[in-house]
């Protein structure tokens, strides 16, 4: 396996999607190639950073509106049953 092929397989490898033979070859290449080992590390770091981006949120008024709608939805249902 060449380095140029290795970098294309990183996500497949991390997803566990590589067939057994390819996975073994991928790991063998990584053990022998410090450049690709580092590349995989940096790829993982990238994913960690993506996962640590601050969450966004809807406005407080939108949230309040939704919680009121939920309370009303329940009340409406209760009325229907009674």
């Amino acid at each position, binding site marked *: 396996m060449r380095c*140029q092929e290795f970098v294309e397989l990183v*996500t497949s490898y991390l997803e566990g999607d590589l067939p057994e033979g390819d996975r073994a070859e991928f790991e063998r290449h990584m053990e022998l190639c410090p450049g690709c080992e580092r590349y995989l590390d940096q790829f993982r770091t990238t994913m960690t950073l993506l996962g640590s981006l*601050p969450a966004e*949120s809807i406005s407080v008024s*939108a949230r309040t509106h939704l919680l009121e709608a939920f309370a009303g939805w329940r009340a409406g249902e209760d009325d229907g049953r009674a």
Partner: protein
Amino acid sequence: MTLVLTERYVATVSAGDRDLVEALLAGDETAFASLVDGWSGSMLRLARSHVPSESVAEEVVQETWLAVLRGLPSFRAESSLRTWVYQILLNQAKTRGVRERRTVPFASLVSDDEDSPSVDPTRFQGPGDPHPGGWRAFPEEWPEHSLLSREVLDVVRRAVAALPERQRVVVSLRDLDGQSAEEVATLLDISPGNQRVLLHRGRSTVRAHLERYLTDSSELEVAR
């Protein structure tokens, strides 16, 4: 093989979903609030891909939750609760996008350079070199301390924002929200292979942005 995995996956999520749906139907406001708090931010992000403004995107999220409440009694757990909610979101956003003349149907989007390489080909040795396809120079090490800075997250955020549409949506759902490959492929109605390619392209591009930023700034530090 794939089918077996998918079935097991559905079976695993639906137990938790069933409890959640029961809690909602029983009027558990805490359950509803935590669901709204947990998902609305990423729903907002997804809605933005289809509508022209932030305020419309927020309206789409609100309309989605109201539609979820209306539909909840008939939720059949054929997909995970989250996939079902996000499908409603996508439908709402598309309807709204058409009305606002900014429709971006996911499947029909141009295949935004899905075939482009993960790493600039000039980084690798050519046919006449001793090791064709091998690194010309190994990727440089990233300075650990820089990774903790707030600026780095800004670089990541901007890199995601600049990704082609489909890659941005997949990277956001997978790596920012933590949804599974199965969920995302189902939601966007794309093949598992297509999902993986979009994810890989997106991640590779974000890594390249980080590399440029981190190795440039370490050069600056050395120069000082």
